[in-house]
């Protein structure tokens, strides 16, 4: 039995439809529809994970949902041309467990699940107009695709199935041969309109980190999981250098998710540690190797501080270069983005990017980490045209950095080993 997966991923939801075709479906009457299951996840990156609801069901449920959405949208549009007082819901809504929508104020809508299977503890979901639009777009895209694929000429003549006899055996044999042939339409994710781009190629565009230890996890913030469930990162890989000084905090004490989410919060304990390290670093000969160790062994650690000047110092502490009065790479990058980064009003999450730098101080690759980072990339003012925005890299400076842009305007920079 072959199956086809249709996947539509507008920014605020993911619609996945799996169609399982029966072996003889190409020979049978077109009235026999393939078995179909759908899964609709409202995964707006601007919402917290626990608000990301999933609905699923079969073909009938999908058609019902499609009808409800289309009718509601049409009535909403029509109401702009009519006098007030025209209701957009009828008394028949909600009867027999059908899902339905009602307006909530001017810009929001409430979707009542009815009989639809879902993982919410409530019986309804509040949708914004953007979410409703994305959902309608995904459903329309699937409908278009279904029409297009259904209008393709049949390779074999339609034969009404009948059982028994030699003819049935012959049909079965031919069907088996047909199934065993390379599938013309294997499992696929389907591209739709630009606003509902497919998910798989997006994932393929994200280059995995080129860290030496194959067992090390990618330090990508897991936007879809609650903080408590995120596992701590393993220790960084060992390098052939002496151990760091004892007063340098253990990276395991500062999981990346906590750091990213606590940007701007005042933590007196962490500040104290920063001050201690700063004092120590001032007295250490800049030619000492341990500074380089810190860069390579604690690639993702920094601590937050309310004052902007304090934000620069930890980066300096981790990435200060020997025998040079020039600001470090991380300092330069932090300073650059502190001037340029203007968080959008509606942004509630931190945006994280991996930047691969060229020797001349320009960016040759930007890797957005997470859906929110992809969405807001063009608003980050990251120089994307290959222009040099920091001084050329010296030999021992890492050329991969992680940039964290926080919704409160703060900027954090981490260096990663090559």
């Amino acid at each position, binding site marked *: 039995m072959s199956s086809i997966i249709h996947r539509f991923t507008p920014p605020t939801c993911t619609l996945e439809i799996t169609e399982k075709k029966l072996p003889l479906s190409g020979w049978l009457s077109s009235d026999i529809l393939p078995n179909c299951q759908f899964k609709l996840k409202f995964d707006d990156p601007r919402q917290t994970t626990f608000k990301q609801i999933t609905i699923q069901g079969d073909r009938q449920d999908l058609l019902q949902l499609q009808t409800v959405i289309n009718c509601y949208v049409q009535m909403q549009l*029509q109401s702009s*041309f009519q006098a007030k007082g025209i209701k957009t819901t009828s008394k028949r809504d909600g009867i027999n467990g059908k899902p339905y929508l009602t307006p909530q104020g001017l810009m929001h809508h409430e979707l009542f699940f009815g009989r639809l299977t879902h993982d919410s503890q409530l019986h309804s979901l509040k949708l914004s107009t953007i979410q409703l639009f994305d959902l309608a777009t995904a459903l329309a895209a699937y409908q278009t695709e279904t029409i297009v694929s259904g209008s393709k000429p049949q390779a074999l003549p339609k034969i009404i199935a009948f059982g028994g006899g030699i003819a049935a055996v012959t049909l079965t044999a031919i069907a088996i041969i047909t199934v065993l042939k390379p599938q013309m339409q294997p499992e696929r994710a389907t591209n739709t309109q630009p606003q509902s781009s497919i998910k798989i190629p997006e994932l393929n565009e994200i280059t995995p980190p080129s860290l030496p230890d194959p067992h090390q996890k990618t330090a990508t913030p897991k936007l879809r999981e609650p903080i408590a469930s995120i596992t701590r990162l393993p220790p960084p890989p060992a390098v052939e250098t002496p151990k760091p000084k004892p007063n340098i905090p253990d990276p395991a004490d500062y999981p990346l998710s906590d750091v990213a989410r606590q940007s701007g919060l005042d933590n007196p304990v962490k500040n104290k540690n920063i001050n201690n390290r700063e004092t120590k670093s001032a007295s250490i000969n800049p030619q000492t190797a341990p500074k380089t160790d810190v860069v390579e062994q604690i690639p993702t650690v920094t601590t937050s501080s309310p004052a902007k000047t304090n934000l620069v110092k930890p980066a300096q502490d981790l990435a200060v270069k020997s025998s040079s009065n020039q600001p470090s790479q991380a300092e330069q990058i932090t300073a650059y983005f502190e001037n340029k980064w203007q968080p959008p009003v509606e942004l509630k999450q931190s945006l994280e990017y991996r930047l691969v730098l060229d020797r001349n101080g320009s960016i040759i690759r930007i890797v957005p980490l997470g859906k929110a980072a992809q969405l807001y990339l063009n608003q980050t003012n990251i120089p994307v045209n290959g222009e040099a925005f920091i001084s050329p890299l010296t030999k021992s400076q890492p050329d991969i950095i992680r940039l964290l842009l926080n919704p409160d305007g703060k900027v954090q920079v981490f260096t990663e080993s090559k």
Partner: protein
Amino acid sequence: MAIHPETEYNHPQGQELANLRVVQDKELEEIKCHLDLVLLALEAIANINSEVIIQAAQDLHLDAVIGDRLTLWGLTSSHPKLKITGEEKKLDVEEARSLVLIICHLANQHQELLRRGVSLLEQVTEQNESPYQTALLSNYLDRFINSYQKRIAHPQKISAESLSDLAWKLLSDLLFYSGQNGHRLLWIAIFDATQINCP
């Protein structure tokens, strides 16, 4: 009831609209008002003038159908005091179809802007803040109200608050019209509205 001859369209979307239903004369006047509103909202949010609309008509090869009306539109837009008296050519169904295609084409071109506007509006609404805090929404509302007062012939008595609500509603509607099926949505909306308004 007059049955209008079907115009050959190079647009599959236009042909789709042509097959949807037969138009009654008395509906066309209301349809014109509905399209005026949507066009007004589009011009206000995208800050475009009649020249852009005429250009869009040319790009879609619809200027032969709608060119004269758009030129007239442009004149009245740039010269608000110029009143066209006498018998103005009534909107016919081919013009209505062309306008729907042009509006949805322009909305699609400005989809990112529409999306941003609606997102901002959702945010200020949820936080009980004034839309005037954001330049995008503030400018849109000002342009919308300004144009409405100048261009809508025989405007219904409408309060300032209702007019603002209408502006926000049309902004949301434009987002839906910017999608791939936008032309169908707009066509059905302007007709279904007349079904209820016309007894």
